[in-house]
């Protein structure tokens, strides 16, 4: 029987990462640490607010084997990655949309990234719309939005902000094959928050609808082509749980995730864009 990992979370991380309910959905693997001293837990959960990379580095120095960062905003991660490597700690990023398993799943499972990779060579347009509540921090939303696009579609070139105001933003650029992409944010209380990604190709495309992680409603990934339309298997798992499940696998296997490497690419892009 495998060991159960003890978990401690900062007060900010509890709501941001839905820690209690996520831990409760993996009860044989994770359980709350006794007492309130974070240093005693195997896994630390921190919120991804400003300075989270420094906080995570301190946590690693304190001896944690695993770290979950709830909804991290883009920050330079090089020092943290070096510290994690040196300590053999696993750092998993719990991203609002990009951590959804429908976007990037297990190696053998079909996911949006695989579908998009097959389609990118003949892409003619990528059109994405993120929806969030009025009053949402646009700069933060842009980071979450770009994280999902990078996870599914890979490199984006020539990215720039075309407009930004109190109702949202529009960002444009090009895909690797030169086809244009647009990413728009719309703030409204009349639609569920989430992100839609539509990649159009010469004979069909890939359509991805990703919900917020506050419930286990599934993302939908549809692949359209000459064969018709294929709905990939729906996964009733929130992005939070997907992130934690990956942490479980890395802790069990003694491996380290590449979350920070991918996040560095996002940070490089994000640092140049301002929508506020």
């Amino acid at each position, binding site marked *: 029987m495998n060991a159960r990992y003890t978990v401690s979370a900062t007060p900010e991380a509890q709501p941001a990462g839905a820690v209690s309910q996520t831990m409760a959905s993996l009860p044989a693997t994770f359980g709350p640490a006794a007492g309130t001293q974070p240093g005693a837990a195997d896994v630390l959960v921190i919120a991804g607010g400003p300075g989270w990379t420094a906080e995570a580095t301190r946590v690693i120095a304190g001896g944690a084997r695993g770290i979950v960062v709830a909804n991290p905003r883009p920050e330079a991660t090089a020092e943290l990655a070096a510290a994690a490597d040196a300590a053999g700690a696993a750092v998993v990023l719990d991203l609002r949309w990009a951590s959804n398993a429908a976007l990037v799943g297990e190696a053998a499972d079909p996911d949006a990234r695989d579908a998009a990779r097959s389609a990118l060579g003949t892409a*003619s*347009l990528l*059109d994405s*719309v993120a929806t969030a509540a*009025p009053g949402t921090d646009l700069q933060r939303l842009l980071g979450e939005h*770009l994280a999902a696009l*990078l996870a599914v579609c890979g*490199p*984006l*070139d*020539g*990215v*720039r902000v*075309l*407009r930004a*105001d109190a*109702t*949202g933003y*529009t960002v*444009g*650029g*090009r895909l690797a094959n030169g*086809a*244009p992409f*647009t990413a*728009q944010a*719309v*703030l*409204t*209380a*009349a*639609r569920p928050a989430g992100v839609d990604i539509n990649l*159009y*190709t*010469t*004979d*069909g*495309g890939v359509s991805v609808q990703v919900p917020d992680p506050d419930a286990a409603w599934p993302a939908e990934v549809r692949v*359209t082509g*000459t064969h*018709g*339309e294929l709905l990939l298997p729906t996964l009733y798992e929130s992005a939070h749980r997907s992130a934690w499940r990956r942490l479980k696998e890395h802790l069990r296997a003694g491996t380290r995730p590449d979350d920070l490497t991918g996040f560095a*690419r*996002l940070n*490089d*892009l994000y640092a*140049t*864009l301002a929508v506020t």
Partner: protein
Amino acid sequence: MSQHAAPADRPLGVGILGAGPVTQAIHLPALARLQDILEVRHVMDVDSAIASSVAARVGAVAGTSMDALLADPGVDIVAICSPHQFHADQVIAACRAGKKAVLCEKPFAMNGEEAARISAVSAETGVPIIVGAMHTFDPGWLAAEQNWGDLPEQVHTIRSSIVLPPNARFEDFATEIITRPAAGQPDYTDIEVIKSALQGGVMGLAIHDLPLVRRFTPDFEQIEVLHVFHVRPFGYAISLKTPTRVIELRAVMNSTWKPEWMFEAIGDDATLHIDFTPSYVQAGSAVATITRGAESSIFGPYGHNGYEGEWRELAAIANGHRPAPSAQALIDDLTFALAIADATVAGAAALHGDAANKAGVSA
């Protein structure tokens, strides 16, 4: 006004200028569903073989002369389905011929001067004109309009997204087409080709929904194009704004089998989402969804599409049962479309050089 009086129980006579794919695959099938109120009596095309063949399908007179069609006393309503550049002069001629009503395919003019001439002649002759912006006659749209309340005032974002297969796919579902325009291989290294494609994209495709966009854009006269992407093989991604509205237009025409034709108007607390059926086929109306908070009301689908809707409206106007549409509204729709088309084409040069995109960053 009309030079003849049809018996009350006799269908109104329709004369069609231009017998190409739109006439064959859209208007004749729509009119076939309305035989109790409308009857095609005269078909004109510059190609006499096409005119004869299309006219024979409906038992109409065939010809190559617009003047002969306009002089035909059996023609109460003139439908102008010719290439865009002929629209203005033909609308004016139909008005001067004293017909009961004129349907002109969009756009009804190619510049403001033509629009002003048409407006003046329509006012002078009293002949009502309808522009074939079919989505404005779609029962799904009309039901939404009846129920959206204050939505137009609170909308801040408008999106029109059109994904279509080649026209031939749906033409072939609708009818048996004779002759199609030859399709070429555009040279997109030529900026003039891109400009032409974008002009055609706005005035030939986006224009279907620009009257809907304008309905939610009170300050439409202050439209500004922020950025334009040309989409290959045919399409566009155009970002627009006015002082109070964000407008995003997307279109892709490729070889997919799956059409998507969506219009959205989004406010802080309410949204309108409409899925339109593809053109050409008689696939019923759009479905409109109005959402306020977490509650949605769905309107449609209804049994007919906007093309049939515009013919029903035309018959009602010609029979005096409905008022003629505002000429100013038609001119405003056209002015709005032309402003977007002109600004889009103007932005194409920068797009071609890709200078703007090189200023961006990569990841």
